[in-house]
């Protein structure tokens, strides 16, 4: 009913095209969402129609809606339908939609393999182009594997338009299917010298992308690229090549020298700024790598003549350039020099600091990046001071946050290498807490913790600072906007608690920590407060008990008891638990105190022991003990049979490992002791094992002369009362004074020395500016190393991203190809299964030998290449995914027929032998199958004993399009796979009683239909034939023949085939609503049948997709692992399915008004799943 209404309004709806939709949306600005939802409803109706034009129009509109943020993945199947239209216009719409919304987990992608393959081999280059473009956006590992070989063939297509696209898409294929890289690489290399510049550019593009990640594998291509660089005039190609050389020169210093000349020429001749910049960039990158300068003094002389004076020293001009783009790029280039020549950049500090004031944020960020590498012990304080000024001025939180992280990065880099005065650093951190609205509170907090834990000398100072912070906590918590910064209190509370022995006024801090206001802090911070209040309490007790004034200690306990209940009521579990524990503890202590018992020692013991810093990677580095196999089962999982219960619960039982809890194997004490001993021995001998030497952690060496350092004598109490005061500045001043003093002292010493050595030869002058080494840290700082587990091995590989797809592409490309590496060619699993033994015996090559499409051009090339390792053929092709939207013609397998065929082949063989004397031919038995009738010769490479490439001259895909009650349209794709022109093709089928081929009026019942085209070699085309069916309840097989003439031989050739009409092909996907479906089932007119499928190992939605796809059903409703499906035959039979899955078993209950049809459909479904 609904369908009819829809049909009536086709015209109206078809009127609304993309432009109308856009116009409509623009006219409904107020209720856009509502308007679009009605449009989507219309689109849904349009998609249900048979007319492909309507569907394509709907899909086009969906693509637009996708851009507006609407999820259109529900129409994925319709998109596939539109993609498979034979018209370019619709195909293009389909592929565009697919490229916009398909991704790796889109189910229907697996249904597209054959369609894409068909389009790739289309005679129309734009069909191929559209398919390649689409595929480049949604290629999956499966598609890449199945289509790699087809795409590789296209790399040698006659049209450059296709070649360049095929070359480019290979990169995507490599990423998804790394095994294809080696077989495809020789051809890719060839394309570097393609006559067409576009193809060349594409090949350069792909190789540059590959080489960027794994440059060492591509060093051997350097001469080829060198040649290209000197010959190419395409700036785009040149830029890519130069960038590639930039990646290669660090690996091969000799390359650098060779590059000087061509790069110089380019720099002089080009007018393109982009090219010029890349040249300079590469020169810089190649400059002085591994101590072998590639442009030693030459660089200076050379660049002085340049238009933009872009030498290392003169980059400055670029940065001072008024063009902001060049300024940006100049800074970018500088960051590259920084890595090799930090000194030369450091002299431009003024300029870079000036860039921090630039109005452009991109430039400011670049400048910040440079600062990171420019700091030294000498200038750190100064630079950070400048940055702090910028922090104050900066508008916009992002930039300020960036400044903040950069300050912390700069200071903490390489284990606080450049920090000479940690008191200064702590005060910088404290100053940073004044920042409004920063997100990086936790960053500051972790720095505070890190410094306080690892730099023991700073603890007294840090604790004092933190105590002030806690005291002024209201400054941080007061404002809602400052939420991020209160993380700092976490660090402050912990430091005050943990190192409470250093506190000047612990009582005051304890009170600060127990203020009612604390309860407004986030839970995790409150928890730390509570815990550390307890630590502080312990310290206080110890102090107060020593004083012999008992009341003070009791007052402290009372304070705790008064304040803690607030936290006991906290909604946060952690806070509540800690608070109630500690409250009980303190109550108990109070009791003891009243009895005059000394408890301090015992309370202190609760928190005894030092917490050591543990390296973040420590856990990962714990070595797996010998003999422990982490992948082995501790207990064998319960066997399959146990869980193969039909109850769905059984599935869950299998997933629950509870039953198989580990039972520790008993190891006797002796064995354990032995192992322990062995491990100790190993540790002792392992140089990488960081021994827990007590000296590094516990003994803090007072440096000689530490008393002289003025820093220690600062009156802390004054500035610290006001945390907002920038006090870090005074450290800069103090530092200067200290250094001055040191210098004076040194001079004295040297004078002394000189006096002693008077008359000696080595007269050392004390030069003005001190060198890096001369600066001694204010504190002899002992930075505790982070702890690593025993036996940890130093390895740097753990920084790499294991998911990086390029890791898989690190493949040696110079090694000759092994047989096992060849690309899979599409193979026909079903055909193998069906192959008769007689045939197998007949075939010279093993059954697994699969036909290989190969253009003759490619073969010629192969002959030129004497290596012989480039041959791409397949022995064990991966079976392609089953994708049969089509009915298939099976090759004739009857032995009687076979004889006939054989004779024919022999004839053919003779002919071909005449033509190509150097080729030996032999017959391949029908290697086709499902979708192709392949009847051709197999050519052999001469040195090889087995055939490697099969050339069949036709391939027939039959697409069943169904219309009317009794008509079936069969579209056949003829593909000429041989080297000769085929003409006068005639298609004929032996009619049966039930089914007849529709012939034009006036022709006899046995006349063939002529195919309306001729086929040049390697070309395919499609023809359609209409059949009339009487009954559709049974599957049918029709025998037929195709006759044709090979142009040069002008003899008639014949090819037998069988058309297989399955019952599923009489079904039309018809949507059905669940209520209608329920009524249908209730009506009682339907006969029942059921089938069980075992061992189906695929997700349920795949299973459903497969049934929908192959057997033209639609899902009515799906609930968990149960779904109802519906379809209708062309003669109006209803077919209803109820599909249930449990484990690997699928049961299908079916109802249909025609039991025979139902039986056959179920058989076919069974067949489909037995093939997978």
């Amino acid at each position: 009913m609904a369908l009819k209404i829809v049909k009536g309004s086709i015209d109206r709806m078809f009127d609304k095209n993309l432009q109308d939709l856009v116009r409509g949306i623009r006219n409904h600005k107020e209720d856009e969402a509502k308007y679009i939802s009605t449009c989507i409803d219309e689109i849904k109706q349009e998609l249900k129609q048979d007319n492909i034009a309507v569907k394509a129009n709907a899909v086009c509109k969906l693509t637009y809606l996708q851009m507006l943020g609407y999820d259109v993945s529900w129409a994925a199947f319709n998109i596939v339908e539109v993609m498979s239209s034979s018209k370019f216009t619709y195909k293009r719409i389909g592929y565009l939609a697919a490229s916009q919304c398909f991704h790796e987990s889109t189910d229907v992608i697996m249904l597209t393999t054959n369609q894409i393959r068909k389009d790739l081999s289309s005679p129309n280059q734009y069909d191929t182009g559209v398919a390649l473009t689409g595929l480049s956006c949604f290629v999956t590992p499966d598609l890449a594997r199945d289509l790699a070989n087809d795409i590789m063939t296209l790399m040698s297509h006659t049209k450059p338009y296709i070649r360049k696209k095929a070359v480019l898409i290979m990169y995507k294929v490599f990423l998804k299917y790394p095994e294809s890289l080696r077989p495809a690489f020789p051809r890719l290399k060839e394309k570097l010298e393609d006559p067409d510049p576009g193809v060349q550019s594409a090949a350069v593009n792909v190789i540059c992308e590959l080489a960027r990640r794994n440059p060492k594998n591509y060093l051997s291509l350097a001469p080829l690229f060198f040649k290209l660089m000197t010959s190419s005039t395409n700036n785009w190609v040149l830029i890519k090549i130069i960038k590639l050389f930039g990646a290669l020169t660090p690996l091969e210093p000799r390359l650098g020298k060779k590059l000087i000349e061509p790069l110089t020429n380019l720099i002089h001749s080009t007018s393109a700024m982009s090219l010029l910049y890349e040249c300079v960039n590469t020169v810089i990158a190649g400059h002085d790598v591994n101590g072998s300068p590639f442009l030693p003094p030459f660089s200076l002389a050379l660049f002085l003549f340049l238009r933009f004076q872009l030498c290392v020293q003169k980059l400055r001009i670029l940065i001072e350039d008024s063009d902001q783009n060049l300024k940006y790029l100049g800074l970018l280039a500088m960051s590259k020099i920084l890595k090799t020549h930090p000194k030369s950049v450091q002299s431009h500090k003024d300029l870079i600091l000036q860039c921090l004031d630039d109005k452009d944020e991109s430039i400011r960020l670049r400048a910040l990046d440079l600062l990171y590498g420019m700091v030294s012990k000498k200038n750190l304080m100064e630079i950070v001071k400048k940055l702090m000024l910028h922090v104050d001025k900066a508008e916009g939180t992002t930039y300020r946050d960036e400044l903040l992280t950069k300050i912390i990065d700069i200071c903490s880099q390489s284990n606080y290498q450049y920090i000479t005065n940690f008191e200064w650093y702590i005060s910088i951190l404290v100053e940073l807490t004044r920042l409004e609205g920063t997100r990086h509170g936790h960053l500051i907090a972790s720095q505070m913790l890190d410094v306080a834990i690892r730099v023991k000398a700073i603890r007294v100072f840090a604790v004092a600072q933190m105590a002030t912070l806690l005291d002024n906590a209201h400054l941080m918590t007061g404002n809602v906007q400052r939420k991020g910064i209160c993380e700092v209190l976490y660090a402050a509370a912990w430091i005050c608690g943990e190192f409470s022995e250093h506190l000047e006024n612990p009582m005051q801090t304890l009170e600060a920590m127990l203020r009612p206001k604390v309860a407004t802090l986030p839970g995790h911070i409150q928890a730390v407060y509570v815990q550390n209040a307890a630590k502080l309490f312990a310290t206080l007790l110890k102090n107060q008990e020593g004083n012999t004034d008992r009341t003070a200690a009791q007052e402290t306990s009372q304070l705790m008891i008064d304040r803690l209940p607030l936290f006991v009521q906290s909604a946060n579990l952690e806070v509540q638990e800690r608070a109630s524990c500690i409250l009980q503890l303190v109550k108990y202590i109070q009791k003891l105190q009243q009895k005059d018992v000394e408890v301090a020692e015992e309370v202190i013991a609760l928190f005894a022991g030092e917490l050591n810093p543990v390296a973040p990677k420590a856990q990962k580095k714990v070595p797996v003990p010998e003999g422990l196999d982490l992948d082995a089962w501790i207990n064998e999982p319960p066997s399959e049979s146990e869980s193969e219960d039909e109850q769905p619960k059984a599935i869950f039982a299998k997933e629950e490992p509870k039953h198989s809890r580990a039972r520790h194997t008993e190891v006797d004490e002796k064995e354990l002791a032995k192992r322990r001993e062995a491990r100790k021995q190993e540790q002792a001998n392992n140089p990488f094992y960081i021994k827990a030497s007590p000296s590094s952690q516990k003994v803090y060496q007072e440096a000689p002369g530490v008393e002289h350092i003025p820093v220690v004598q600062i009156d802390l109490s004054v500035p610290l009362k006001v945390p907002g005061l920038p006090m870090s500045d005074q450290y800069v001043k103090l530092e200067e004074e200290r250094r001055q003093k040191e210098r004076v002292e040194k001079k004295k010493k040297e004078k002394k020395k000189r006096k002693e050595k008077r008359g000696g030869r080595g007269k050392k002058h004390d030069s003005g500016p001190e060198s890096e080494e001369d600066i001694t840290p204010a504190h002899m700082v002992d930075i505790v190393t982070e702890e690593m587990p025993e036996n940890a091995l130093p390895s740097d590989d753990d920084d790499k991203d294991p998911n990086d797809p390029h890791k898989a592409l690190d493949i040696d490309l110079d090694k000759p190809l092994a047989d096992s590496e060849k690309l899979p060619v599409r193979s026909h699993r079903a055909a193998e299964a069906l192959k008769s033994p007689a045939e197998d015996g007949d075939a010279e090559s093993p059954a697994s030998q699969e036909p290989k499409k190969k253009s003759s051009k490619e073969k010629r090339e192969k002959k030129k290449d004497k290596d012989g390792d480039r041959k791409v053929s397949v022995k064990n092709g991966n079976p392609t995914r089953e994708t049969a939207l089509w009915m298939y013609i099976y090759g004739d397998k009857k032995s009687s027929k076979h004889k006939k065929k054989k004779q024919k082949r022999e004839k053919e063989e003779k002919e071909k032998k005449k033509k190509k004397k150097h080729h030996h031919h032999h017959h391949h038995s029908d290697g086709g199958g499902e979708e192709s009738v392949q009847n051709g010769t197999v050519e052999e490479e001469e040195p090889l004993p087995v055939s490697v490439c099969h050339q069949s001259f036709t391939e027939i895909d039959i697409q069943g399009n169904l219309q009317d009650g009794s008509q079936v349209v069969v579209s056949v794709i003829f593909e000429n796979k041989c080297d000769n022109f085929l003409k006068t093709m005639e298609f004929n089928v032996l009619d049966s009683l039930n089914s007849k081929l529709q012939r034009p009026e006036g022709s006899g019942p046995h006349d063939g239909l002529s195919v309306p085209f001729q086929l040049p070699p390697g070309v395919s085309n499609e023809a359609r034939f209409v059949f009339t069916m009487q009954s559709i309840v049974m599957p049918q097989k029709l025998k037929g023949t195709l006759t044709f003439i090979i142009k040069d031989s002008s003899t008639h050739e014949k090819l037998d085939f069988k058309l297989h009409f399955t019952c599923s092909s009489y079904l039309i996907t018809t949507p059905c609503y669940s209520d209608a479906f329920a009524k249908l089932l209730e009506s009682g007119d339907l006969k029942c049948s059921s089938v069980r499928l075992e061992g189906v190992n695929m997700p349920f939605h795949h299973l459903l997709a497969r049934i929908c796809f192959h057997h033209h059903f639609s899902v009515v409703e799906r609930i968990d692992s149960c779904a109802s499906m519906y379809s209708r035959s062309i003669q109006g039979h209803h077919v209803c399915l109820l599909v249930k899955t449990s484990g690997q078993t699928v049961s299908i209950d079916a109802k249909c008004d025609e039991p025979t049809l139902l039986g056959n459909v179920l058989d076919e479904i069974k067949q489909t799943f037995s093939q997978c």
Partner: protein
Amino acid sequence: MIKAILIFNNHGKPRLIRFYQYFAEDLQQQIIRETFHLVSKRDDNVCNFLEGGSLIGGSDYKLIYRHYATLYFVFCVDSSESELGILDLIQVFVETLDKCFENVCELDLIFHMDKVHYILQEVVMGGMVLETNMNEIVAQVEVQTRMEKSEVKLSRPSG
């Protein structure tokens, strides 16, 4: 590699989006919003490069954009692309649009998003630059347009 190409107007309305890496629709919209936010507050006389789009890619990626009248053309690329090269490419793309639409303006992009996609497909494929020669791009686009027209003519009488 180019990770994404975004065209939006001065108000942040998307006119064409082309991601070469999968993002769910809501994330795509978020990226557009964020990118618009970053780009729109920049003066016309600052540089055309932008770092720090947190949603798309990491530190290796940057946004390279051009502003034409009412439209922003934003390319998100990684370090294998030349910054100035991409700027030139945007220019080529816009000039191609200008040729194909004859004095292109925002309205052309609004009503013919599909055509803009088809033109873009001849310039960039799967995130890699396919063709930089404008004449070649225009020629290929025109052949395909002609094909489409001839198909329409064919289908009219029959359907």
